[in-house]
């Protein structure tokens, strides 16, 4: 029983990682006041670029970084459209997602000569890390040790992002830009510079997330392999009210749904029905969060002294 449980928990950590990484990216843009559903497209770009470059170079870590940077380029296009040309961020996000879906399929065919999915023996997966002391612990060892570096990186990123946003002047400025752009501008902050940086950062993190999908537990790229995980990450941001710890919790919830999905399929339940689970959980989580919000608004306001992290003017 404990083997099954530790296996499940380890799987949760693994499947939650892409959602957490992209979610942290989405969180930063959300805090900067940009509505970012292009996470899906950024992830897909990163996933493809990482596999293609790993095939080219034979080095998965280098490909991972380069893939994330290429995803940044996609984020740059999004930033250009939304900030420079004042495009509606939702429509532009849909455009980016389509562009990423088309470009990756197109380039896979043209450059790699594959249709549907691509893999080669030159593509090696990300290395796994064995944690020295933790590995020897009876139960936790099996849960925590032996993941790819990205899993640990994502976990470390949570307090780092939290600290940066709430304890450094750069982070405070970023939140000010998101909460009240006009006031921030009056105070001399360059609003669009902060927002551009936030979008590029979300591109980088989402690119890593995508690379974790294509190089983390499998070593292949398939058409539209992100399968809505970017939107799930976006929901994690909404669910967590753009607070890092809550986004972490949400990513674990969605990771759990996905990990359970893989396991239940083995018991002869129709796969099509089981595969719905992560999406249903996502809708349920979003709804639960919004219902809570609804009740909170109706309840008399107590003077908490802490401002809300995301201003009410952002429709989420």
């Amino acid at each position, binding site marked *: 029983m404990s083997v099954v449980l530790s296996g499940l928990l380890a799987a949760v950590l693994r499947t939650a990682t892409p959602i957490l990484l992209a979610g942290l990216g989405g969180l930063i843009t959300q805090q900067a006041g940009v509505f970012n559903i292009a996470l899906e497209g950024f992830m897909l770009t990163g996933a493809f670029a990482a596999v293609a470059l790993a095939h080219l170079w034979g080095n998965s870590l280098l490909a991972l970084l380069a893939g994330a940077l290429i995803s940044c380029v996609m984020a740059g296009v999004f930033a250009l459209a939304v900030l420079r040309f004042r495009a509606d961020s939702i*429509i*532009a996000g849909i455009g980016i997602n389509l562009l990423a879906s088309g470009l990756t399929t197109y380039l896979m065919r*043209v*450059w790699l000569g594959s249709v549907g999915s691509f893999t080669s023996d030159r593509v090696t997966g990300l290395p796994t890390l064995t944690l020295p002391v933790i590995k020897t612990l009876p139960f936790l060892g099996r849960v925590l040790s032996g993941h790819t570096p990205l899993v640990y990186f994502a976990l470390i990123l949570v307090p780092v992002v939290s600290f940066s946003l709430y304890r450094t002047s750069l982070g405070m400025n970023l939140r000010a830009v998101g909460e009240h752009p006009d006031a921030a501008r009056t105070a001399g902050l360059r609003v669009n510079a902060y927002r551009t940086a936030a979008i590029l950062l979300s591109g980088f993190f989402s690119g890593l997330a995508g690379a974790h999908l294509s190089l983390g537990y499998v070593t292949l790229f398939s058409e539209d392999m992100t399968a809505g995980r970017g939107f799930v990450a976006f929901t994690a941001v909404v669910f967590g009210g753009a607070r890092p710890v809550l986004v972490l919790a949400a990513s674990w919830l969605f990771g759990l749904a996905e990990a359970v999905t893989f396991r239940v399929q083995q018991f002869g339940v*129709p796969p099509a029905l089981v595969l719905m689970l992560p999406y249903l959980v996502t809708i349920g989580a979003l709804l639960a969060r919004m219902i809570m919000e609804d009740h909170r608004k109706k309840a008399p306001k107590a003077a908490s002294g802490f401002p809300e992290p995301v201003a009410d003017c952002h429709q989420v």
Partner: protein
Amino acid sequence: MERRTVAESNIPLARVRLGQVTVWTARQALVLLVAFSLSTIILVLARQDVVGAIRALYGGAFGDLWSFSRTLRWTTPLIFTGLGAALAFRAGMINVGLDGQLYLGAIAATWVAITLTGLPKLILLPLAFAAAALAGASWAALAGWMKVRYNANEVVTTLMMNYVAILFTDYLVRYPLHAEGTAGESVATVNIAPQAHLATIIQGTQVTTGLIYALVAVALVYCWNSRTVPGYEVKVIGNNPRFATFGGVSVARRQVQVMALSGVLAGLGGAIEILGVQGRFITRFSNGLGFDGVTAALLAQNNPVGVLLGALFMGALKSGGLAVEMFSNIPRAMVTVLMGIVILTVTVQGGLRLFKRHTGGDA
């Protein structure tokens, strides 16, 4: 922050109509020009035969009667999803769940057409359409209700509901409605009753009476938008929901209704795909008709007659894309790339907004 399009301004319609149409045409032509140029750059960078590709694209879409029929065949469902997207946009709602609604409509119509096989055409067809409309409407209205009641972002819910709906049809086709002898990628239901097939209007092609229904839908939506009270109220809601509230419009109710209508259109589009072209429900039969409809609506700036042109353009891309893949070594995915660029360029035209919405941009 008051940026408005001509369509949003209060100038009486009759006076601006000509100018409006000219501006619209010029702007959309520019958008398409930019999008095509950017795609060309991608093709050139990938060292591909651009002239050959454009020739194949055009030939495949309009080259001969057969190609043009194929364009019309794709235009038909796109008119439905395009109208659905445009209706929702007009009310300030973003319905990107058209794919899911289309699938549910298609499976509902299929179910009627394979179960009630004893009924005559005149009863069976309306029943199939009604089932499709109901399925699409309820799925879309659910997302609309979650939006107006709990402010659950409809982009996220409708997208997630796409996956749920499509997987649900997968399940239905693989288990309760499964036809013997079909498996794998092309698992399907049994064929629909012969009298449920829509009549072909161009001999030897897949252009059916579905196209006529689509044109009727354009006319109906046009009239609803411009000649009825709910249609007018929806326009006010899309422009300024608070103003609409002060004016005594029940915003929430109208928005849910519009989502339902949007779902009805998508569902009917699915029904016409099955009854007109497919003849049975094959899993994953639709190749992104929902998002193509969104693109058509964006190009049309939500005008129903514009949707007709937008759908024709998208249909031509779909039909031509097949030819490009066949006669050159450029994959069809290039069309998706083009669509993405079109959507991006449609929204960046000088900050003109399709509808007001408090999004992240300098709100």
